[in-house]
């Protein structure tokens, strides 16, 4: 077997303690939360290098043995596939042992890190150095790291929430062992690798995100100077139909920077599911009915929609921005609840978002993540479309949308019991119908999980699939790295 021969050879590179091939050792890496059978995504092994040289050697060996390597950083990606591979039989290239913080520049407020560095590790380091710098992290912040989340184009909810947009300079090992430093990193004795992301000529960083064109072994990122003041709040709208006017009211506040972060627009059910057990709210057939969710939410002071946001800056600016927001929210029929604390928005690591998994208690989670152009009419159309399909499949509707540049990322979690085969099948069918329906309505996607990548790639069109294939053939002609990632193959 090619994979067995590769794993034997890999042990001579990384040491046998850092190669896993037995089924019990592989089980933690095969475990997924998506509504898919684990066997369709089961890895054949795990290799954990410590150095760039070991990554180069492993890529060469994989090419010789025709093995496939699926790179992971901390291997989380909850609800998008965890560590598991797009197709069965791939070997996970687990980069968690590569976890050096190589540089923190307190003047330019930048860092250079390896893939295994976690947000918690980076934050602890900044505190030990007494640096007043914030990092921005996604919901599973303490357990995951900047490289993996940025390469998936994940986001957070401080003003630096666009992780790809705040990354600066990558080191990438290509399938033939070539080491590429992007942007200013190619300059001998570079002084500005983390200072200017575009470099000279084509800007390449993007092709190494959500892709399989190389293995990123270092990444620069910008850190946010701790703001002198900040204030968080929650704007509440009572009716489901308020979605259009609230988006139209919030959009100008985002565009002119009055609201300093993406924030999170949570529907009533998302907060219910994060704080209650489903059986205590509804035990009838089918999906949680709209009116039942709203009635339960009202007991907690919730409306149909809650926008959790923050303003940042000097105290006078915070006060004046707050006043503008309050006026706009009230004019649009909402109410503003001051000083609602969302730890993620103020640089405090937390895993409280994952209380969501207690809703049904079965380790099933899949994020359906279409992009909403930031128009009220589009947001309303998406919510109606999604809820209609979910209701038919008996899937609870919930969403947490971030308001980014000109778009909202309409991230809808599906929470279900993976040990219930019928429920898992319903959620899979629902997810696939949603992809098709949103594509047919002219919407595309910000991200998706293993098992759904080909379908989402198809929505984005044959020309994109073909160009990605040409790039793949040029950079990885043997198709060694992560075949099937984002629907890309040789």
């Amino acid at each position, binding site marked *: 077997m090619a994979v067995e021969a590769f794993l034997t050879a890999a042990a001579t590179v990384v040491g046998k303690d*850092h190669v*896993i091939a037995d089924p019990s*050792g592989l*089980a*933690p*890496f095969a*475990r997924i939360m998506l509504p898919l059978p684990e066997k369709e995504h089961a890895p054949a092994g*795990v290799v*954990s290098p410590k150095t760039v040289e070991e990554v180069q050697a492993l890529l060469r060996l994989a090419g010789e043995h025709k093995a496939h390597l699926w790179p992971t950083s*901390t*291997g*989380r990606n*909850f609800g998008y596939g*965890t*560590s598991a591979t797009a197709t069965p039989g791939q070997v996970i290239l*687990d980069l*968690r*042992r590569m*976890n*050096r*913080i*190589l540089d923190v520049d307190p003047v330019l407020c930048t860092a250079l890190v390896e893939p*295994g560095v*976690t947000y*918690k*590790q*980076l934050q*602890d*380091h900044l505190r*030990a*150095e007494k640096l007043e710098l914030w990092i921005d992290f996604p919901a599973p912040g*303490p*357990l995951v790291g900047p490289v993996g989340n940025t390469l998936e184009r994940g986001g957070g909810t401080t003003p630096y929430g666009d992780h790809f947009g705040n990354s600066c300079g990558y080191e990438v090992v290509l399938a033939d062992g070539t080491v590429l430093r992007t942007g200013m990193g190619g300059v001998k004795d570079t002084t500005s690798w983390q200072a200017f992301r575009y470099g000279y000529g084509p800007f390449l960083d993007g092709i190494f995100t959500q892709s399989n064109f190389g293995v990123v072994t270092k990444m620069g990122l910008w850190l946010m100077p701790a703001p002198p003041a900040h204030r968080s709040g929650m704007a509440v709208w009572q009716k489901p139909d308020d979605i259009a006017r609230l988006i139209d009211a919030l959009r100008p506040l985002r565009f002119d920077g009055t609201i300093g972060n993406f924030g999170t627009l949570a529907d009533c059910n998302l907060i219910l599911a994060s704080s209650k057990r489903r059986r205590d709210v509804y035990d009838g057939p089918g999906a949680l009915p709209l009116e039942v969710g709203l009635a339960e939410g009202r007991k907690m002071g919730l409306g149909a929609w809650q926008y959790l946001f923050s303003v940042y800056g000097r105290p006078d600016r915070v006060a004046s921005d707050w006043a503008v927001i309050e006026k706009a929210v009230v004019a649009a029929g909402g109410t503003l609840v001051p000083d609602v604390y969302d730890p993620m928005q103020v640089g405090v*690591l*937390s*895993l*409280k978002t*994952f*209380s969501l*998994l*207690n809703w049904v*208690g*079965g*380790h099933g989670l899949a994020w359906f993540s279409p992009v909403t152009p930031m128009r009220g009419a589009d947001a309303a159309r998406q919510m109606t479309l999604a809820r209609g399909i979910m209701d038919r499949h008996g899937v609870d509707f919930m969403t947490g949308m971030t308001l980014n540049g000109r778009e909202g990322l309409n991230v809808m979690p599906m929470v279900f*019991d*993976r*040990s219930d085969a019928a429920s898992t099948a319903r959620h899979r069918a629902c997810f696939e119908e949603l992809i098709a329906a949103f594509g047919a309505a002219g919407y595309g996607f910000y991200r998706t999980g293993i098992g759904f990548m080909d379908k989402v790639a198809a929505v984005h069109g044959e020309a994109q699939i073909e160009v990605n294939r040409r790039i793949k053939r040029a950079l990885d002609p043997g198709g060694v790295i992560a075949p099937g990632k984002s629907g890309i193959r040789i």
Partner: protein
Amino acid sequence: MIRATIILLSLVTPTLASAQSAGQWRGPEHIWGASCGYCHDEGVGPQLRGRKLPAELIPPVVRQGLPGMPSFHPSEIDERELASLARWITRSPAPARAAAK
């Protein structure tokens, strides 16, 4: 040479102090505080301390996970660290906040 060594150490030492992969943890309390506690001290998962849970039952759960709990890989916590963490959880008293409830 000595000067170069000192500069090198000053660059590297903070990284090691905060390092959080297998073989780098400073002890079970460090693991708990940087990882487990975010759920098990915050009501996301159940409190485990103060329950005298059998230490031998803990490592398989950490590796395989439970409904709602992720699995943890050997590259983030090794067998020796996991065994030490399990013993620490078993013998730890309930935290003051939980005990007061």
